């Protein structure tokens, strides 16, 4: 699995996201309270850019009228038709087995000795790195 520098850490502060092209792949990277998540930046439905979607929490119910809210900011809704995807897995909420978008492992590192296509790698600072 190769590592690819996708962005500088300071480019994606908590609560934001970016869309980057890495080795020919469009990747949406989300920062949720310092934790990074990477999804293929295309809804499996019709290709809407997930990087432009609104993030919400996970809403579950054990009965009607019950709204169990958890994992704030970890569910993105496609801007086109509202489909929800779990930032941790790329799986859709309505049919997680059949409908999902690719999920990428992300890590933060100093980027030393790594090639970067779209980021100007300087000698100082940390980088967000996509693995695939």
């Amino acid at each position, binding site marked *: 699995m190769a590592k690819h520098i996708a962005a500088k850490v300071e480019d994606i502060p908590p609560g934001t996201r970016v869309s980057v092209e890495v080795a020919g792949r469009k990747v949406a990277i989300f920062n949720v309270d310092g934790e990074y998540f990477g999804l293929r930046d295309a809804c499996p439905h019709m290709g809407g850019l997930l990087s432009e979607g609104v993030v919400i929490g996970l809403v579950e119910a054990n009965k*009607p009228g019950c709204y169990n809210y958890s994992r704030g900011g970890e569910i993105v809704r496609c801007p086109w038709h*509202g489909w929800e995807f779990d930032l941790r897995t790329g799986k859709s909420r309505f049919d997680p087995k059949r409908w999902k978008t690719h999920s990428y492992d992300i890590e933060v590192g100093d980027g030393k000795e790594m090639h970067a296509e779209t980021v100007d790698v300087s000698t100082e600072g940390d980088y967000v790195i996509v693995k695939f």
Partner: protein
Amino acid sequence: MPYPPVGAIDCDLHPAVPSIKALLPYLDDHWRDMVIQRGVHELDSISYPKNAPISARPDWKPEVGKAGQDLVRLRKEALDGFGTKFAICNCLYGVQLLYTEDMAYAFARAVNDWIATEWLDKEPRLRASIVVSPQNPDYAAAEIDRMAVDKRFVQVLMLVMDEMPLGRRRYWPIYRAAERNGLPVGIHAGSAYRHPVTSVGWPTYYAEDSAAQSQAFQTTLTSLITEGVFAEFPELKVVLLESGFAWLPAHLWRLGKFWRGLRMETPWVDRHPLEIAKDHVRLTIQPYDAPPRPDDLEKLIEHFDSDEMLLFSSDYPHWHYEGNNAIPDGISRALQNKICYDNPLATYPRLKEAVT
């Protein structure tokens, strides 16, 4: 069109209350006095006007009185006529139209006692639905508990158009009582006329009213699913009566499409609406609203992705077909057997108990 196989179970036929006088012996003393003192007239609704051809097939129409009011004729024309093993009486009388909860409750009790005495006691092949007053769901639940003791009552009966969409929690005491007693809820075409019968306002012609019924069923089914009736009452079955059925796959695809994007509004809807309907919803086949060519009907049935949803109904004495041709062309013999026998037995546990 084929005949139903002998021994079919007819899930919708209509004995008629001949006149309000027939119910007087079954009303409480107070309400009997009130009917007379207030001059309460017949509680027939405009859903089935007497002269509308659909209301009575010509050969089932008596010279005098209403079609379906005479047991001897119903026995000969519907039960012997189709060779049915059981037939479920859905009595359409204007109980649901009344504005007073108390009088509606009194009439519901009277109609149920009248059905038990005048029909079920006299004809062992007949079963019946419990008429309830949705004006007060607690009263309706009490009536379900009262009548459910009699195992010949196999279902609860409501009209598709009431004060509000039937999924609302206001109605849940009815569903709770139905589930508790192991009874499906039958939802029949018709209206309490609290609102126009179309969602865009009052129509001009009877044909518009009739055609609009399937829209009401679509909206009602949507309400039951989105409000979470089947999540709250996982054992509940709903039977749509005189609903047509051709609309179901297309409507639920449409609902499913919106559910995918708006799932978080109704998180208790945990799977596609069609999957929920396959588990909980059944539909009677008359009046038949599917395509006339057998090949097209086969394709349509495939879209249900289930052979368990359709139930045979004669809809006696309403006029939708001639002779015994109550089964549309294009339904295989195997599916006919499911529709006429297996599916009704699975839907109505009390019929199954009677068979075994």
